[in-house]
């Protein structure tokens, strides 16, 4: 019998990152609209630290995935749905890598180095360049809206499977329930 569920580490990383990314998204939107204040500087630092953590987690997640391929989707699932699911998942991974990278590069270009938890300075891969910093800020925002749209589609698909198709696909990603 082939495995029908994701491994526990894959589940743990999926849900941990889901919470982290949604939090980062909200924080990013909130903080960038604040007038400059010490609190804003703190939130920016926290956003950057959490963002770097997300970057490390996605690298770990990809490394795990290479050694532990996801379970095959149910054979009854239409081909287009499988393709769509794989497409969305791959694109999501791409964005989960690209977003923190763009944030890191943006910070360097703006002349605000990223110092992980105030302790570990990340190298500035770009030197200070204001127009480039602004461009990267747009890129960071743009990629984020891309991921947000993708996640909306992703969650809608998960809910559709759960509520309309009732094929219990969600259980593949849930540690608590027996699958069939």
């Amino acid at each position: 019998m082939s495995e029908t569920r994701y491994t526990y580490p894959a589940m743990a990383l999926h849900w941990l990152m889901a919470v982290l990314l949604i939090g980062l998204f909200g924080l990013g939107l909130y903080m960038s609209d604040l007038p400059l204040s010490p609190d804003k500087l703190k939130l920016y630092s926290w956003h950057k630290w959490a963002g770097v953590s997300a970057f490390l987690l996605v690298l770990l997640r990809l490394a795990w995935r290479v050694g532990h391929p996801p379970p095959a989707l149910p054979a009854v699932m239409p081909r287009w749905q499988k393709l769509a699911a794989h497409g969305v998942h791959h694109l999501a991974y791409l964005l989960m890598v690209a977003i923190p990278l763009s944030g890191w590069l943006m910070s360097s270009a703006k002349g605000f180095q990223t110092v992980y938890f105030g302790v570990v300075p990340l190298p500035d891969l770009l030197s200070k360049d204001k127009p480039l910093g602004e461009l990267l800020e747009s890129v960071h925002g743009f990629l984020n809206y891309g991921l947000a749209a993708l996640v909306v589609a992703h969650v809608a698909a998960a809910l559709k499977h759960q509520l309309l198709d009732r094929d219990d696909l969600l259980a593949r990603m849930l540690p608590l329930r027996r699958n069939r």
Partner: protein
Amino acid sequence: MKPLRLTLAAILLASGSAQAVEFKQFLAEQSTLQFVSRQMGVPVDGHFRKFAATLAFDPTRPAAATAKLELDLASVDAGSLDADGEVVGKPWFNVKAYPTATFVSSAIRPLGGDQYELTGKLTIKGKTQQVSAPFTFRQAGGNGVFDGTFVLKRLDFALGDGIWSDLSTVANDVQIRFHIVAAAAAGGK
């Protein structure tokens, strides 16, 4: 006769560089005034675009040297547009009430070699403090080049009142780096 002439020439040459040359003419284009603040533990560079120095420095008579600096605080580049807008405001420089900062030297002391120490009164935002800064002096292309740094405690000058007085976000220590280039006064060498 010949060895004597050579010796004389050598002495003249040696003293040539130490001859009374006074560096007086401030070269704004080549001079810079930078600072590094720490925000959440991260060093952030800034600088001032407009400042003027009035100085007279003769390396053979450093004790007689004087320096005065006038700084247009509104010309600050604090690292980002956001910060530029903030730092000219009331909690920081309050440029409406205090448009300029000044430094007036009271003593310049040789520390040996090309090292000196500059002491004087720094006035920012109506507050005056004694500061001293080590600096090096060298000559390059006929100009005198002065490079020095010192640490300013921003709260000594009430820079960052109110919410900003929290030192865990913006540190009290601000490093100031000056690079002043001055041409020799007319008639020198």
